[in-house]
């Protein structure tokens, strides 16, 4: 096994001693083969060729580095290693794919970025890595296995001179298992080559037992490494009356603070944090109810007192309903903090158009009496003082909140709508164009538009929680401006002089004509194309027919020629 020498093994003394020993014991020991030593690649290679040509097959050369061309000189066959590696690599690919598909698509499907559960591209990197890993294991372990290593006891190691094989000497070895092996003949054959050292390889007489300390070390390492595993396993199956041990107490129980408590985390020492500047708490806004609801509350109280009270209560949770007039409550309604909506039953009021569906708190109720039909007294004009700043703010907020659905110009074709149409979303309702006549100020008062923005309509959610009251009114003003921008008649322009007026009218007529021409041209082109297509189809059919006919004729010709040939 591990042969130990007390001094440099290549010294003459050691070598002589070894040779004497060998001579005296040669008869009792089994002979494994004969080895010859060379000092250069060239002498080794020529010796190899001679041995090969002499017909020996169970031969081997031992060299300090891979020698080019020795496989031919010795007649070594190529290895099957690449096939092992291929198999291992494919196993790696399959393992990775099956693992990922099973784990992420079947057993525990994750929704990631809206991708399908089984999306191969994302599984490629790991598949590649595992392919390389398995193939490398195949190459590494396959190579050692094919080489029969690790193998610590080898008869060639018995000769101290053989230690130089990993330094600068080359050895050629003929095994005694070879059919032609005959010790004298082999020694003579090798002696004839360019060598000055030929030696018989005999059994290794050193102990083949692994030294005890090695075993003890191994046992110690294995024993120690098993302990934690056993402890964990025992804990898994046993019960304990002790409370669980917390290694990191503050991670298991996070030190969350209550209101009014002291905290060291902030410089002011308070655990509660003050509101971000500009925060408006619910019910805290100080404004009159007309401004908050878009409804003339005085008029509403006169028509429909319960509804008015309900609206007041919505903005003032402390209101009890005994107050004489809702208008009086407008000021009291401010400064409170809750907007609980009471699910109180009340008659449906039907205003003009699609009207009151826009009020979120007014759920149509079939059990209510439908006979009470009262129009809502919407505010007719915007309570804000209109100026450029209001319009600019309206435009800004419209761009942020409204344009995604209604489009920047309010035509109802925003990006969300475009996308919804593209994917043919089944529950999508197209946003209204703000340029319908039903939405003009004369049919859809400002107060109603404000209420729609605040409370939502159909699929549109209410924006009261996101946009400040003042900015919602600004949006109303901006929507009016938008409507005007798309549908203004020339009569609405008061400051125009005649020449300008005439110019605009002329342009209008021209534009209309251009549009009509364009539409006509498009229709004509479409018609022509349809005709042309029809014609092309017909022509193609004709052509095919003609081709077929021609082919028949040719075939007939060929047949004729064949028969003619055959007959001659």
């Amino acid at each position, binding site marked *: 096994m591990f042969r130990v020498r007390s001094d440099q093994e290549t010294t003459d003394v050691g070598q002589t001693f070894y040779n004497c020993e060998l001579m005296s014991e040669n008869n009792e020991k089994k002979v494994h083969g004969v080895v010859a030593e060379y000092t250069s690649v060239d002498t080794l290679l020529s010796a190899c060729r001679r041995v090969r040509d002499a017909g020996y097959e169970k031969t081997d050369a031992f060299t300090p580095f891979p020698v080019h061309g020795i496989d031919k000189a010795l007649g070594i066959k190529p290895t099957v290693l690449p096939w092992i590696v291929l198999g291992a690599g494919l196993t790696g690919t399959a393992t990775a794919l099956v693992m990922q598909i099973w784990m*992420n698509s079947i057993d*525990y499907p994750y929704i990631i970025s809206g991708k399908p559960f089984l999306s191969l591209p994302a599984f490629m990197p790991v598949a590649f890595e595992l392919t390389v890993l398995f*193939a490398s294991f195949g190459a590494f372990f396959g190579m050692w296995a094919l080489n029969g290593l690790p193998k*610590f006891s080898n008869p*060639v190691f018995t000769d101290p001179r053989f*230690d130089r094989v990993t330094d600068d000497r080359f050895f050629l070895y003929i095994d005694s298992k070879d059919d032609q092996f005959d010790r004298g003949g082999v020694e003579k054959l090798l002696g004839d080559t360019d060598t000055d050292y030929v030696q018989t390889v005999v059994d290794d007489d050193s102990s083949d037992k692994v030294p005890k300390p090695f075993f003890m070390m191994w046992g110690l390492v294995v024993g120690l490494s098993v302990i934690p595993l056993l402890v964990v396993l025992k804990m898994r199956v046993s019960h304990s009356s002790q409370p669980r041990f917390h290694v990191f107490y503050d991670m298991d129980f996070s030190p969350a603070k209550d209101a009014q408590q002291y905290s060291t985390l902030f410089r002011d020492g308070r655990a509660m944090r003050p509101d971000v500047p500009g925060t408006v708490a619910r019910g805290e806004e100080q404004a009159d109810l007309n401004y908050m609801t878009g409804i003339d509350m005085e008029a509403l109280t006169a028509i429909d007192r319960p509804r008015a009270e309900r609206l007041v209560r919505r903005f003032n949770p402390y209101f009890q309903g005994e107050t004489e007039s809702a208008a009086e409550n407008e000021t009291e309604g401010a400064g409170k903090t809750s907007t609980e909506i009471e699910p109180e039953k009340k008659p449906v009021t039907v205003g003009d158009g699609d009207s009151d569906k826009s009020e979120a708190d007014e759920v149509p109720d079939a059990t209510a009496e439908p006979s009470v039909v009262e129009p809502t007294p919407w505010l007719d004009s915007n309570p804000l003082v209109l100026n450029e700043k209001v319009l600019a703010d309206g435009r800004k907020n419209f761009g942020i909140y409204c344009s995604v659905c209604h489009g920047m110009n309010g035509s109802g074709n925003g990006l969300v709508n475009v996308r919804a149409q593209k994917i043919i979303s089944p529950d999508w309702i197209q946003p209204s164009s703000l340029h319908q006549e039903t939405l003009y100020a004369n049919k859809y008062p400002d107060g109603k538009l404000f209420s729609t923005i605040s409370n939502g309509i159909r699929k549109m959610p209410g924006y009261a929680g996101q946009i400040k009251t003042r900015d919602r009114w600004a949006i109303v003003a901006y929507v009016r401006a938008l409507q005007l921008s798309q549908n203004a008649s020339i009569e609405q322009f008061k400051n125009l002089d005649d020449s300008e007026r005439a110019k605009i009218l002329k342009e209008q007529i021209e534009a209309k004509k251009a549009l009509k021409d364009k539409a006509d041209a498009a229709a004509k082109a479409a018609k022509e194309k349809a005709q042309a297509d029809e014609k092309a189809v017909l022509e193609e059919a004709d052509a095919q027919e003609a081709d077929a006919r021609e082919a028949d004729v040719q075939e007939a010709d060929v047949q004729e020629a064949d028969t003619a040939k055959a007959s001659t």
Partner: protein
Amino acid sequence: MSLAIPNGLDNTVEQPGERAPLVLGDTTYHDITEAVCQVAERKPSTSWVIGFLISFALLQWLGICILYLIYTGVGVWGNRSPVFWGWPIVNFVFWVGIGHAGTLISAILFLFRQEWRTSINRAAEAMTIFAVVCAGTFPGIHVGRAWLAFWLAPYPSLNLWMWPQFRSPLLWDVFAVSTYGTVSLLFWYMGMVPDLATFRDRSVNKWRRMAYGVLSLGWSGSSRHWMRYEKAYALLAAFAAPLVLSVHTIVSFDFAVSQVPGWHTTIFPPYFVAGAIFSGFAMVLTLMIPARKMLGLENLITIRHLDNMCKIILATGSIVGLAYGTEFFIAWYGQVQEEKFAFTNRAFGPYWWAYWTMVTCNVISPQLFWFKKLRTTPWMIVLVCIFVNIGMWFERFVIVVTSLSRDYLPSAWAYFSPTWVDWSMLIGSFGLFFTLFLLFCRLMPVINMAETKATLAKQYHVSNDGEH
């Protein structure tokens, strides 16, 4: 032994019709064995002992910092909102990058039959493994609860009842880095077995002989074994070559697949790979030049080797410079407001000093290697390489910190400042690296003797000097 003194031959010049020798001096096979083995066999030199003590002290300090971190929590780092990645990830990417040169030299240069790799590949591979060890440390402790880092592995957990998410680049990274570490280790160890057998056969001490005997697996130098060994080596090289490119590609996916401005770019994979090779070669040279001097290996690691490596640094450094330029061009050309801001902010924002340090070290300093004088003067190479190492660390700092500290939400912007733990861990990771490297120099064959002898054999063959 004539090894200590180079014979004065300038092997950086190619003579027409004749290959410049890669092994200098009147070197024989035995001289190579002696030159390499004496490094491990003689008593350690004073410089080695001092270096080892310093490195080992730094390693202990790293260990103490890690314990402190685990005991206290990740708040000991400078990682604060919005920069949650901070130095641990900077250090991770830095070390993984360093770890690219070894396998590149071993695998890609092997496949291209660049024989000059033979005397530097062993040490470079060892460096790769030690750098990957350093790199692996950082994500391991950066996960917060380091004792649960095994959750990264896809194992049937009785606590979680769920699997890792295989569509995340962070998980790809786990597989890439661990595969890379494993394959590099196999490659390194397999290449070392014949040389460990040399160590075994030269051992006079019983225990030493036994230890190297076990490590060398009973290698006998049989030609049949060599044949399979070479086949396996070529196959491993063929796998390691795409692997080395995939690793930093996947590391770059950690950034590129996210949507942070300055990270979300398709140029990242090639740019990261070039940067990794660049920094890896710089680190190899930084280490090898003092080592070859101290260990007396000047005839094996010749000026020609240094010259070639400098050329690779010049090439990859220029690629990195081009990538910096391209990033800026695309930020402008793409007309994405956030991207434009991210890059303006990199160069002229609060981290301008880091950006311009990076540009100076990475783009300008390697350009000095256009001059042959610089490529062949060892101390100058070391100087430039140290600059490159600094520059590449700053590159990762710039990418990680500037992008995170100012992304989409201006109200969350903040300036990152490291704590003493950050500093200690960066320096401590060098302690870990050098401790392992110095131990390697003492205990393992620092140069691939078998391959160097094969190169020498070819050299004999070419010069038709059949004397040997």
